[in-house]
């Protein structure tokens, strides 16, 4: 492949104005699928089921089968639409999007085309420095997910060059809401960060509504980023590319930035941008061309004749509106006050995308300070080291448990970090790891005194020095004891005991 030229980011922004548009797919965590009674793998209860075990004649597209709209999915979609500030359609309709692909059981996807359930909204998105943007929402519509292909053989794991492919229809028919923004102008150099903050806001909303597990690493939340550039002063929008497969917050920011730099380099040389789908590669931090979009996109949409229009009662919509949780921005203001964090401490949490994790950890019993410390400290460090999101490393319940063990004196901070590594490695809950690895602080004075006596025997002059008022001499003994106990002793307690010995020997 030819080497891709990138323009310096600052220079790209001097020459061009970036315009972005974002499509976010949210998998709903309903009990059953969008159009069939099969269990929904996007619901925590059914996550990780063996391939092709969560299927019915409907999701397999068996001859004669018919879709039936899942009422729970409609209600959750309406709630999401309302939370996005959208109007809810009095009547909306499903359509068939026709294309052949082996992960699409019927070879058409049931989606909403010209009559989405929600439209014309706006979402307040906050950047790291506290500035806010109003992102305009064009529509949110319901559709079904496709199955999942696994390409076996070949070097890339992609369909090209594979020996054969396996299809898992568990995901076929999972309810999705696709949220489409209008073109977002004016973000300038913040466009990559805004893209990330926007998806993070959608995630916050989905979680606060309880409509999705909203875990990006599981594909509960997926983002396609549209990017185009126009020369400074130009009115007409440039040709856009759509980058798919952007599956972490970090990648969203990187992918948008990359496309800005790539497109700028092409345009500055007088080249033209191809309207196409591009794939994001997490490992290299680059995008590569997928299929061209222009002529291939005749999906032959027509109204789905197997379904009747969705006509929610105004009363029910009003009830759902009344039941909405507080918007993320308001919630942030409230939590900051409740937790008594400084601006800096709170930004640390928000910018790390860890607000929900900290809140859940506090809800699970940890103090706000401890919750913040673990998430923005050790867990963030581990996440950076492995290039993932901290939220994917540990559950709030485990972090709260860890904090409680420290609080109770069972673990020192140092031991707690070791336990956390075990949690991240999937070895179990903190208590289980403490038990399995024998990591608890030795709180048995007898064992400590024995170790102290041994250390004093090796350094007989220490007691005399302490008696002479040179208390810092105790440090050598404490160090020896900690070493002997493999760090599993509470240093403060050892110090107390050494001083007691010195006093007793007087």
């Amino acid at each position, binding site marked *: 492949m030819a080497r891709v030229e990138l323009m310096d980011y600052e220079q790209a922004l001097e020459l061009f104005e970036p315009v972005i548009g974002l499509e976010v797919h949210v998998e709903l965590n309903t009990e059953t699928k969008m159009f069939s009674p099969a269990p929904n793998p996007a619901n925590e209860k059914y996550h990780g089921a063996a391939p092709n075990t969560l299927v019915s004649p409907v999701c*397999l597209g*068996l*001859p*004669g089968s*018919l879709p039936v709209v899942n009422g729970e999915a409609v209600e959750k979609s309406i709630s999401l639409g309302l939370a996005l500030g959208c109007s809810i359609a009095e009547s909306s309709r499903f359509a068939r999007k*026709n294309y052949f692909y082996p992960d699409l059981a019927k070879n*058409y996807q049931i989606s909403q085309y010209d009559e989405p359930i929600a439209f014309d909204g706006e979402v307040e998105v906050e950047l790291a420095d506290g500035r806010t943007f109003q992102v305009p929402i064009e529509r949110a519509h319901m559709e079904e997910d496709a199955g999942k292909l696994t390409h076996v053989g070949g070097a890339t794991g992609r369909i090209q060059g594979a020996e054969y*492919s396996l299809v898992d229809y568990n995901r076929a028919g999972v309810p999705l809401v696709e949220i489409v923004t209008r073109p977002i102008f004016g973000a300038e150099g913040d466009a990559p960060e805004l893209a990330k903050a926007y998806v993070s806001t959608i995630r916050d909303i989905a979680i606060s509504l309880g409509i999705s597990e909203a875990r990006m690493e599981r594909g509960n939340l997926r983002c396609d980023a549209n990017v185009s550039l126009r020369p400074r002063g130009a009115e007409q929008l440039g040709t856009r590319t759509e980058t798919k497969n952007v599956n972490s917050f970090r990648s969203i920011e990187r992918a948008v930035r990359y496309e800005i730099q790539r497109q700028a380099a092409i345009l500055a040389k007088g080249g033209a941008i191809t309207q196409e789908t591009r794939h994001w590669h997490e490992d290299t931090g680059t995008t590569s061309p997928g299929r061209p979009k222009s002529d291939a996109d005749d999906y032959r949409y027509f109204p789905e004749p197997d379904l009747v229009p969705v006509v929610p009662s105004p009363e029910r919509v009003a009830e759902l509106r009344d039941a909405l949780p507080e918007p993320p921005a308001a919630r942030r203001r409230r939590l900051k006050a409740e937790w008594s964090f400084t601006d800096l401490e709170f930004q640390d949490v928000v910018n790390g995308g860890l607000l929900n994790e900290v809140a859940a950890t506090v809800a699970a019993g940890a103090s706000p300070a401890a919750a913040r410390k673990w998430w923005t400290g050790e867990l963030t460090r581990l996440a950076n080291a492995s290039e993932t999101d901290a939220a994917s490393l540990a559950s709030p319940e485990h972090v709260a448990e860890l904090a409680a063990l420290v609080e109770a004196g069972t673990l020192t901070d140092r031991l707690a970090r070791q336990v956390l590594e075990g949690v991240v490695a999937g070895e179990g809950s903190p208590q289980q790891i403490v038990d399995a690895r024998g990591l608890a602080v030795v709180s048995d004075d007898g064992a400590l005194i024995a170790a102290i006596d041994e250390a004093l025997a090796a350094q007989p002059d220490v007691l005399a020095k302490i008696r002479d008022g040179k208390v810092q001499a105790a440090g050598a003994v404490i160090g020896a004891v900690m070493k002997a106990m493999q760090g599993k002793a509470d240093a403060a307690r050892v110090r107390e005991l050494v001083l007691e010995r010195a006093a007793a020997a007087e």
Partner: protein
Amino acid sequence: MSHSDELIRLSAAELARRLGRGEVSSVEATQAHLDRIAAVDGAVHAFLHVNAEGALRAAAEVDRARAAGESLGELAGVPIAIKDVLVTEGMPSTSGSKILEGWIPPYDATPVRKVREAGLVPLGKTNMDEFAMGSSTEHSAYGPTHNPWDLDRIPGGSGGGSAASVAAFEAPLALGSDTGGSIRQPAHVTGTVGVKPTYGAVSRYGSIALASSLDQIGPVTRTVLDAALLQDVIAGHDPHDSTSIAEPWPSMAEAVRRADVQGLRIGVVKELDTDGFQAGVRQRFHESLELLERNGAEIVEVEAPNFEHAIAAYYLILPAEASSNLAKFDSVRFGLRVTPQGGGTVEQVMAASREAGFGPEVKRRIILGTYALSAGYYDAYYGSAQKVRTLVQRDFDQAFAKVDVLATPTAPTTAFKLGEKLDDPLAMYLNDIATIPANLAGVPGISLPAGLAPEDGLPVGIQFLAPARQDARLYNVGGALERLLEAEWGGPLIAKAPDLSTHELTATEEGAL
């Protein structure tokens, strides 16, 4: 006449009555029909699959339940044939296509489940035009069905197998599907009764879809009462079909038993009473109307100016929906798989499988429908067709403001010869000129025998149409006319059909079981 010969000639209602009284067992009745199938189906070829063992087992179960005093449905123990468009657990379901050869579905269509639950005994699956595309069963991938009145003629289509099975006394009842006339037109050419209920009256769940907004499952029988009894079994809301009607239905059988046309206003559709219909077809149609008039009905002429565009609209909407409905036949999950020589990509395997698995009429309609839905053509074709559909519905609304039911001849001609129109799709499509408007509007229709055409001695049907959800009106007028005509004829028309069992029957090549 042997006991067995007598059993197969009984109406379903009469057979049910004797079963209820214990005069005959379901096993006896089922065996009699299986014997009949063995004797005549080599020549008729109504069946694609006969489930003798399963039928006898189901019959024995009904007999046992009856002996144990369990409460049973009115038709319990009566055999029934099932159009192959309906999926059946444990029986192959091909929809007349090679692409589904040998496929045994893991579930029952809702109408099939309902007939099983009512104690009816499924005998097997009946022949049809591939994916219900046709008016003669000549488009079946498994060879045509022959009309029991004249084995050289078509039994109608697409449900020629179901109609021929009841006309040939191989089954007292059958299930059919009607997308543009596939129940009613075969009834017309085989001297039997066929009803397309209101769209949504019977669940489509498990009916291999041709055109989702037009398809409807309905009864195929020899008498109007039998059709009513069967509709009472299969109708009703189904949570698996969003388009099925939620409200409960009155008894259709009651409507037949109380049939009375005194004061009934019957509209004759002017546009469907023309020279375009065979003379004998028109003659019997008008004689029937005169008979109804003499018995108290009022005959009124009504206009339906948009009916002339119905066929054009139908042949855009149907292929458009069918092109999408048939996309699932790609060899990935079920059905025929053809791998090109030397292997191929999944796209190439899909293409090769569809090329080999679909017949020419299916391909013709998939291509038509794909074109009609394409970007740039959608408004001109699919969009316009939907507007015509609205206009046809408006014609019905205006007509039904004046009359209780409409009457038309069911089809333009009596049964034509096998092969006669096979190479002329347009001529074939015109068979459904009188039946298609009902599907476009979702209203119910019935076809029942009106006599034999004097010029060729072949059966002629008369069609009645009613407003949506007024299926009972069809059973009222149909039941009344049947009684009046049979009084004139001295018995049912079907009694005049040639006695196949006395013929020297030779299994035709494509008709061999």
